[in-house]
């Protein structure tokens, strides 16, 4: 039975097998099998035929706008004298003597190329509407100007590349070597470009995208910088290069100041923006400038965040220790006593915090807040001081009990307990918020930051984060820019008026007179109004103050906080103590001691070579036309 069928079946199988082998070794298209489609890459033709996709590319370019100090890199705020970093990983900022020449350097021609490519492609795009095209082009040019401004303030003049360059693979790339533009040429480009596109941009309606207001604000700021470099650069003739890559001729100062004033007044004239003034409590009002996103006409441009979209950890990092919503982190920025005592008294005068009387005895206060009383309300809008409240809860900052003999009873643990002399029960001897020496993530120097710290519940949680936005341009800065430009142009009336607008909103009852406006006032007003807004470094640089106030000399806290030239090389703190001497009238009262937090070893030294950052060897090796920056 089997026998008869067998050969035939084998034959059939053989045929089948041969077929399979044939298919295996010659058949099916290998290419088809190997070609797979990407799941996240859009082709250029797909993008440039669709407004939404073009905007998606644009959004990414907005996203790449650089911020030296910001909510996503809080630690850079601790590099100068505004704040102490209560975070062991950042103590080095107070221990390094000198700033590196490469610090805050930038040479991002990858971003510039992407912007140039965008502009190039947008110009030839035919499948999007002219209206969209005009706006996209103006926006891309705004971002490009911002990026060049960012370069020039860090590096001085850089090559102005305005078309996407292409290498021809010929082996000889010398044709791609462009020299650095003069410093003023970059400023001129930024100003001219914004003048050219400002009317292609909408007036208001968005605070994330470029607007006419933002373009003018950029002119206002850039022209002011250029003007002050031309003006104050005369104080540091060694900070310049013969080719003008660094340094702006003094003769150009007036023109820039005029441009800054004009652009600022154009912003004012738009009528779109106003100072935020909605809360009767002026401190509250000040902190809400940064927290209120819904009805706030002060903000011209901001980097926005969104819960259930994209948030940042600024609040997680900086919320007072006892209020934190996470069991880790918190309290990393401790604003310095240097900054805190800079806030004027309400009568427009300056004073140190009164900790001692004339003969050197401690002053006793009933309430820890008393020592801060009568000061610029912006202080409490910027800083959480001992005894103040945040999120409706009093913050518990005190360093311990001070005994009659001057000794201290405290604890190494927040809210720690110990026995006071003559008692056999333990009581709390230090605040739940610090300060405790070297205990990071708490008010190690006696203060917490309030500005930008989110009050909404959940913003201090890793899983949620904060959606507070990062303000890049706001109306108050425009007023201060106008005030400074007017002052430099000897229009003191105007300067006083613009500055007083800001000060009235801040809560000062008495205006400054035009005669009271001087350089110290200009410097001071920006210091307190714009603290923690990424201005300190650029302002101190353009005024050529940086090497004088951060001079590397170990100096005590100034007793003249209004002086623009006061040296401020180390960050100080303030320890509140409770006095313990049963029977004494001062028992239970508060006294304060200034101190230097233990991790602060060395004085900041800003060298002349820090005014313009180091241009990397890789940049100069590849393009011999790039000259080095001076004094490095």
């Amino acid at each position, binding site marked *: 039975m089997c026998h008869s069928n067998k050969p035939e079946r084998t034959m059939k199988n053989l045929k089948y097998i041969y077929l399979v082998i044939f298919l295996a070794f010659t058949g099916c298209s290998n290419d088809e099998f*190997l070609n797979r489609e990407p799941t996240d890459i859009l082709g*250029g033709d797909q993008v440039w035929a669709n407004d939404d*996709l073009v905007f998606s590319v644009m959004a*990414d370019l907005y996203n790449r706008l650089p911020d030296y100090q910001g909510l996503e890199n809080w630690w850079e705020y601790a590099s100068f004298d505004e704040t102490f970093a209560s975070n062991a990983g950042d103590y080095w900022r107070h221990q390094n003597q000198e700033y590196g020449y490469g610090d805050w350097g930038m040479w991002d021609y990858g971003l510039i190329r992407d912007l140039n490519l965008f502009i190039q492609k947008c110009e030839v795009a035919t499948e999007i509407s002219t209206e969209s095209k005009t706006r996209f082009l103006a926006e891309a040019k705004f971002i490009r100007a911002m990026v060049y401004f960012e370069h020039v303030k860090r590096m001085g003049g850089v090559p102005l590349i305005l078309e996407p360059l292409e290498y021809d693979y010929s082996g000889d790339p010398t044709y791609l070597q462009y020299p650095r533009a003069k410093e003023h040429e970059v400023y001129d480009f930024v100003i001219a470009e914004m003048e050219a596109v400002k009317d292609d941009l909408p007036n208001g309606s968005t605070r994330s995208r470029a607007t006419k207001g933002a373009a003018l604000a950029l002119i206002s700021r850039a022209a002011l910088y250029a003007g002050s470099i031309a003006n104050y650069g005369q104080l540091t003739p060694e900070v310049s290069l013969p080719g003008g890559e660094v340094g702006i001729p003094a003769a150009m100062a007036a023109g820039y100041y005029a441009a800054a004033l004009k652009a600022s007044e154009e912003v004012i004239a738009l009528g779109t923006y106003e100072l935020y003034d909605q809360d009767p409590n002026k401190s509250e009002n000040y902190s809400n400038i940064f927290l209120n996103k819904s009805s706030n006409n002060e903000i011209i441009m901001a980097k926005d965040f969104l819960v259930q979209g994209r948030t940042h950890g600024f609040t997680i990092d900086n919320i007072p220790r006892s209020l934190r919503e996470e069991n880790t982190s918190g309290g990393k920025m401790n604003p310095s006593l240097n900054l805190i005592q800079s806030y004027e008294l309400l009568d427009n005068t300056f004073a140190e915090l009164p900790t001692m009387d004339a003969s050197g005895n401690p002053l006793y206060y009933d309430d820890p807040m008393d020592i801060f009383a009568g000061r610029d309300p912006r202080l409490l809008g910027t800083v959480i001081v001992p005894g103040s409240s945040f999120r409706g809860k009093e913050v518990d900052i005190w360093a311990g009990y001070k005994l009659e003999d001057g000794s201290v009873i405290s604890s190494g643990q927040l809210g720690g307990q110990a026995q006071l002399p003559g008692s056999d029960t333990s009581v709390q001897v230090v605040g739940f918020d610090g300060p405790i020496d070297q205990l990071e993530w708490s008010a190690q120097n006696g203060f917490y930051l309030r500005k930008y710290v989110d009050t909404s519940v959940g913003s201090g949680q890793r899983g949620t984060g904060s959606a507070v936005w990062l303000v890049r341009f706001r109306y108050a800065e425009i007023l201060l820019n106008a005030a400074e430009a007017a002052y430099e142009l000897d229009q003191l009336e105007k300067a006083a008026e613009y500055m007083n607008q800001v000060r009235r909103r801040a809560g000062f009852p008495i205006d400054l007179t035009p005669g009271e406006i001087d350089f110290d006032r200009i410097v001071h007003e920006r210091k307190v109004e714009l603290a923690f807004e990424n201005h300190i470094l650029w302002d101190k640089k353009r005024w050529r103050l940086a090497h004088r106030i951060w001079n590397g000399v170990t100096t005590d806290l100034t007793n003249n906080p209004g002086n623009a030239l006061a040296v401020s090389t180390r960050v100080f703190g303030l320890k509140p103590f409770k006095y313990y001497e049963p029977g004494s009238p001062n028992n239970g009262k508060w006294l304060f001691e200034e101190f230097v937090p233990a991790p602060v070893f060395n004085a900041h030294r800003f060298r002349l070579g820090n005014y313009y950052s180091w241009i990397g060897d890789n940049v100069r090796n*590849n393009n011999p036309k790039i000259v080095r920056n001076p004094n490095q």
Partner: protein
Amino acid sequence: MKSSLLLLIGMLMILPLMAQTGTTIQGTILEESSGEPLPGVSILEKGTANGTVTDLDGKFVLTLKSDNSILRVSFIGFKSQEISIGSQTNFDLQLLSDLGNLDEVIVVGYGVQQKETITGAVATVTSRDIDKAPSATVSGALAGKMAGLAFRQPDGRPGAGAWLQIRNMGTPLFVIDGIQKDEGQFNNLAPGDIESITILKDASAAVYGSRAANGVVVVKTKQGKRGESPTININGYYGWQNWSRFPEGVDAYEWMLGKADADINQFGNTNISAEELDKWNQGTEYGYKSFSWKDFIIQGNAPQSNFNASVSGGSERTNYYLSVTRFDQKSVFSDEFEFNRTNVQSNITTDITDKLTVGMQINGRIENRENPGVPGGDDYWQPRFALFRNRPTERPYANDNPDYPANINNIETNWALLNYDRTGFYENKWQVLQTNFTAEYEILPDLKAKGLYSYYLADNIFNTFEYTYDVFGYNPETDEYFRSGGNDNPYRDRGQTKIMENVWQLSLNYKKTFNEKHNISAFFLNERIERTRLFNFVHAVPTNNFLDIIKFADTDTYNDERQEEARIGYVGRVNYDYAGKYLLELAGRADASWKFSPDNRWGFFPSVSAGWRISEESFMYSFTTNVDLDELKIRASYGQLGDDNIGIGPFDYLSGYRYGASTVIVDGENVQGSSNTGQPIDNLSWYVATIADVGLDFSFGSGRITGAVDYFHRKRTGLRGVRNDIFLPQELGYGLTDENLNTDSNSGAEIAVNWNGKAGDLVFRIGANASYARSKFVKSYNPTFSSSWDQYRNSREDRYNGIFWGYEVTGQFESFEAINEHSVNIDGQGNKTLLPGDLIYKDVNNDGKIDGYDERPIGYQSGALPSMNFGLNFNFQYKGFDLTADFSGGGMYSYNRNWEMRRPYQNGGNLLASMYDDRYHRADILDINSEWIAGKNPPLRFNTGGHSNYNKNSTWWLTNVKYLRMRTLEVGYTLPEKLLSRWNMERARIFVSSYNLFALDNVHQFGIDPEVADENGLQYPQNKVVNVGFNVSF
């Protein structure tokens, strides 16, 4: 006629049944190779307790108890035999030695080969060795087992695997039952289902082409044997695990005293008073009691168990192996941190016709990791971090009341919270099914065609729920507890992965012998591999701690991914040997990977190898018989292999915009940003590895002593580099893309020797192996340096990889005078921060200061595998007893102490006891003027990483590790067959074993396991395990 013939045949067949109860049989048992009689051989009538042993002349006599008996003849060191008793009463039997491995069959690429004809460098380990290591993963069981396999297991948590590399060449390719798989799949096979693991170390791996450049690990699972009656095996063990080592911290008094010491060292004063220290020293007063976090967290004796049941056997046409295994492992922290896995394996092959054989293999597993949901990435981190992050002055509960977890400095490391009740849960589950279908058809007697289709489906889900919780303070005055903090961050996430893989293979196999001496075989194969991975991730901020489901309104993140891979290979291999004497193999594989641009997809990887079995030569005859040499083979191989894992993404050859590159919020709207993908990378192709290997195989005394020696050299060309002689200005905005330009090499040698022997009733197997492999960067395209220092410090040209640079410590300052007299500026601040006991660095360039220019090579790679690996394996059997003792070791790698292992009071937490115990300090800690007392360690400083002692890698902190480790130590007892036979059992064995009992090494003084890699020393180390177990067969 016909019918009478049938009757006759029938009668002949029935005859064997006629053996009668009471029949007496007798016989002689001889050793097969020598013909000598064997005394002491056990003869057993199967299914009864009736048996005997042979006398001194190898003779036996036995009276049968039953009809139709089967005799089982067994002797230690020999292969057992079973004989049906017919009418025969007189038996002369020859027993085959089980000691040598002359006829060993080795699994090689896409098939098996006789060991004697192999021309490549391979090493094999079989089930009997794999089974003995109580490891959660297959990789963990391979330490010291194969020459050429580099091993390090830094992590010992439940379910952890080891780092494996073949000849330190990089991550190898894993091939399981002919299918290319990944390391995770390899690690989570049930070790008991593995028949053998072979590593292909040289160009013999070329048949695996595109991904074989780092060697191949080939796994074969167990199969039943044709014609073997079903055997049921049940194996199990239960054991207890404890950490091999972990660094020790100090107690509260020492902590406070050390803190006072550190304060005075750093600032000249402290606010810790003598009275306070006294209270801590007494440790009785409220608030002054020391707390041991280690005793609180580390429970020890964590259980681990493995149970396996399998059945295997076969008929004439079918063979099968079916198995189920369950493995459970808990952590030393608590039962809540655990790993478990259930594996099934089913291998069935059957002949449908004489020519067509089909088979199906199913491998499935469910793999679970579960533990409390601890905030932060790695849930096993906080419990270990706690041991050094928490101070011994802190306590887990407010007022020691377990209802109120305390607010300690770092709440996340409060172990009181790290449990399912308080912090939540995490679970990670893999469900994996691999199915292979095969069909083999004999086209001609010499030509076979085979088809294989394999489908793989893996499903992974991880679920995290981290609850909110409160922590408390206690006010003794009012006897009140108050909330003082906690976790207000409810966290919920879920990630799901699905992986689907299709593999098609079609092959032809031809094998023929011409003129009796020319043996030719040829093999061709076409393979297609396709893999799709789907992944999604959702994160939510739940509104409560109770409900498991995730609602859209609570979510804030959703990610979705899909990736595909596709590879094609055409393999050809021809083997020729002449009279089993001269061996030649030619192999090649053309491979394409989807990852490269269409023009660069294909690579061709040829190899050639040859062998000469000198021992087969007639002129060697007198020599071989004199020294009892049975095999001497010289072999050499040379070939190329490819690697498509060159660090580019699969679509880097396209230009366009990457959608979702950023999340941008525009006026409160969530916009997905698209970024320019940049210059397309369309010129890159395979790395090509050229491996040369020369080896020698030998065998003496019928396989009693065997061994192999190999030397190899691998050169990889086409490594990524950039043509740096064209200076493209950065202002261009893009650079030249990498090309296949650079070269590196890797060379080394290995030796393995095995000795199988017998002395009286003692049978033993002793194996030793050692290997050395180290890689070197050979050359880059046009190396350029800005200075001779730059060249010295940064050049890689013709240098070993993994050189550790650091400072040389020449000693410690003994006094302030010595510091003052020291002319070299060590701390950059004129030595004003130095104290007696601080480290003196060698000013190599004599410039009067210590800086980067004083760095020199001081060690080997620190986070990688040892360059030197060795193993020693002992196995003894004496009567029913057996003893296994395995050792493994390594050297030529470095451990760099840092963080907790370097800085006292890192993060303000605890400090290493040894740093406290033996240190430079003042006679009276609190008196800054008292004299200094010398110690081994530098004086204490509190949480200071910036000091010159701590901010440099130096010979003080670096140890070039060497270790020898006891791996398995196992004693077993096999019950006598006589006893078992009564219960119808074939085999029963009980054993006690230990694993990692001790290690001899040069890092024990730091409390570090020699294989730990984390610089902070807080890695979960390997466990010491003690097991009891059994093996039973029916």
